[in-house]
């Protein structure tokens, strides 16, 4: 979920921050295929797969739900994000500044930075579950929201401190480690799951479906967990990266693409990380459940260690760390864009401290599905605003890039689209009980309509005066 390899390199190319990427810097398929495969096999995958098991997904619900949801995610990258990226060849942040104005873009950056902090916090907690193995750390449980022991807090603080210090020194080397680790990490996921299949009772491939139904994705949620259906899986798989595709964060990546259809390269991330890795981590968790008599303990480290030994524990640490580290760095950059005079290392240190404090709370890991859905939902309306501004606003006879055209620092139409969408989502969540995973779809239409209506109201009077 976090941008790691190619994006790190792209970030260092500062001359394209506020100009379209020139043709000589456009990249081929290979860069995007590798980046997406690596980026979406990360620490989060050790949590999401098991949480599907905990939420009582059925085997058919998982297999077909992931197929449909991941396909929709790939189509969103290919048909919504990549074509706009090719057309403008600008970063998300610069496009937002042109459309929404510097002040609203700054608010977006702060919100984005906060979301990054919590995501990185969850990954520090995931790494801590592996670091704590030799110390026989008391691991958190599925229903834990608060830290369960002093040992947990100390371990998290240690992991957080190391992660923050490394991030303060920049993240070129971390990005490099992440890209080197990616192919190995994917294989560890697969190997760990394949190796424990006999312990679950799968003696041949033909046994898999029967055993998966009976012992892995049984359709029965664990105590205290809500029941997930096929539709939960579809919408989660589609919207867990909503900020990136429909929310347009990956404009920053696809602005380097030679062709719009490179958006389909996201399929490597979806069908390796969000399909194979989620299934693999679900298999590992179900073995843990079976052997622990359905214990509520939820700790990716010991689960991977049981299946793959020290290599499995290292994989959890590396996956968590290589996701948390660039995420902290990125959160720092987002904040620094508001106050360019702040030293990067100081901002990163403050972000690291907030992140580490957040990581002490196991709720971040246990509620990762809800958090990831919320993360996408909160940032999605700006993607709808950009899409409308690029394709529809000019056809209505109005000016695109409102803030730049009219020299404004705050586009009220975009702000209202953002706030009203989130208000509407909250309303139907509270009063109609619609779960957070399903709010993104109606929310997108609300954001688009509100933006068009208020743009029409604002620009009509301005154009009449002109």
């Amino acid at each position, binding site marked *: 979920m976090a941008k790691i390899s190619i994006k790190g390199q792209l970030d260092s190319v500062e001359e394209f921050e506020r100009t379209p990427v020139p043709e000589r810097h456009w990249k081929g398929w290979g860069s995007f295929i590798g980046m997406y495969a690596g980026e979406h096999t990360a620490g989060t995958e050790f949590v999401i797969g098991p949480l599907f098991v905990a939420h009582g997904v059925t085997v058919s619900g998982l297999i077909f739900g992931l197929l449909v949801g991941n396909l929709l995610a790939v189509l969103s990258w290919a048909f919504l994000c990549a074509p706009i990226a090719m057309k403008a060849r600008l970063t998300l942040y610069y496009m937002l500044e042109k459309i929404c104005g510097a002040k609203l873009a700054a608010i977006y950056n702060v919100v984005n930075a906060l979301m990054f902090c919590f995501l990185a916090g969850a990954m520090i907690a995931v790494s801590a579950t592996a670091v704590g193995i030799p110390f026989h750390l008391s691991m958190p449980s599925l229903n834990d929201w608060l830290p369960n022991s002093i040992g947990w807090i100390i371990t998290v603080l240690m992991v957080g401190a190391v992660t923050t210090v490394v991030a303060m020194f920049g993240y070129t080397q971390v990005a490099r480690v992440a*890209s*080197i*680790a990616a192919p190995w990490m994917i294989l*560890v996921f*697969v*190997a760990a799951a394949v*190796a*424990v299949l006999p312990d679950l009772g799968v003696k041949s491939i033909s046994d898999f479906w029967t055993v998966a139904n009976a012992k892995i994705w049984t359709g029965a949620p664990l105590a205290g967990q809500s029941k997930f259906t096929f539709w939960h899986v579809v919408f989660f798989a589609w919207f867990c990266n909503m900020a990136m595709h429909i929310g347009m964060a990956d404009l920053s990546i696809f602005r380097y693409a030679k062709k719009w259809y490179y958006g389909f390269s996201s399929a490597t991330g979806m069908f390796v990380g969000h399909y194979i890795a989620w299934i693999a981590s679900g298999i590992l968790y179900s073995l843990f459940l079976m052997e622990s008599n359905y214990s509520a303990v939820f700790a990716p480290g010991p689960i991977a260690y049981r299946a793959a030994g020290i290599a499995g524990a290292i994989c959890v640490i590396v996956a968590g760390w290589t996701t948390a580290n660039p995420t902290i760095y990125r959160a720092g950059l987002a904040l620094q864009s508001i106050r360019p005079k702040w030293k990067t290392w100081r901002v990163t240190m403050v972000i690291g401290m907030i992140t580490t404090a957040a990581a002490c709370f196991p709720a971040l890991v246990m509620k990762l599905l809800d958090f990831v859905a919320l993360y996408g939902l909160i940032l999605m309306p700006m993607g709808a605003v950009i899409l409308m501004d690029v394709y529809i606003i000019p056809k209505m006879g109005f000016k695109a890039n409102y803030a730049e055209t009219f020299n404004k620092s705050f586009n009220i139409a975009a702000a209202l689209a953002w706030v009203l969408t989130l208000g509407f989502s909250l309303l139907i969540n509270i009063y109609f009980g619609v779960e957070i995973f399903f709010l993104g779809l109606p929310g997108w239409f609300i954001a688009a309509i509100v933006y068009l209506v208020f743009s029409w109201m604002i620009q009509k009077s301005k154009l009449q005066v002109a």
Partner: protein
Amino acid sequence: MSNLILKIISFAGLLLTIIPSFMVFSQGMELNTNKYLMLLGTILWFACTPFWMNRNANN
């Protein structure tokens, strides 16, 4: 030439990470042996790969 050797060792590391698990599945190997081989594969991969993969990232 040395680059080629490093690449061969790296890929041997990846093979050691994945292949033994299928032998465990086909009941041709103990799970503990697989864990040691995965660790060996991990060491080989991380010891050799940084010398040839994404070296330009240093710049």
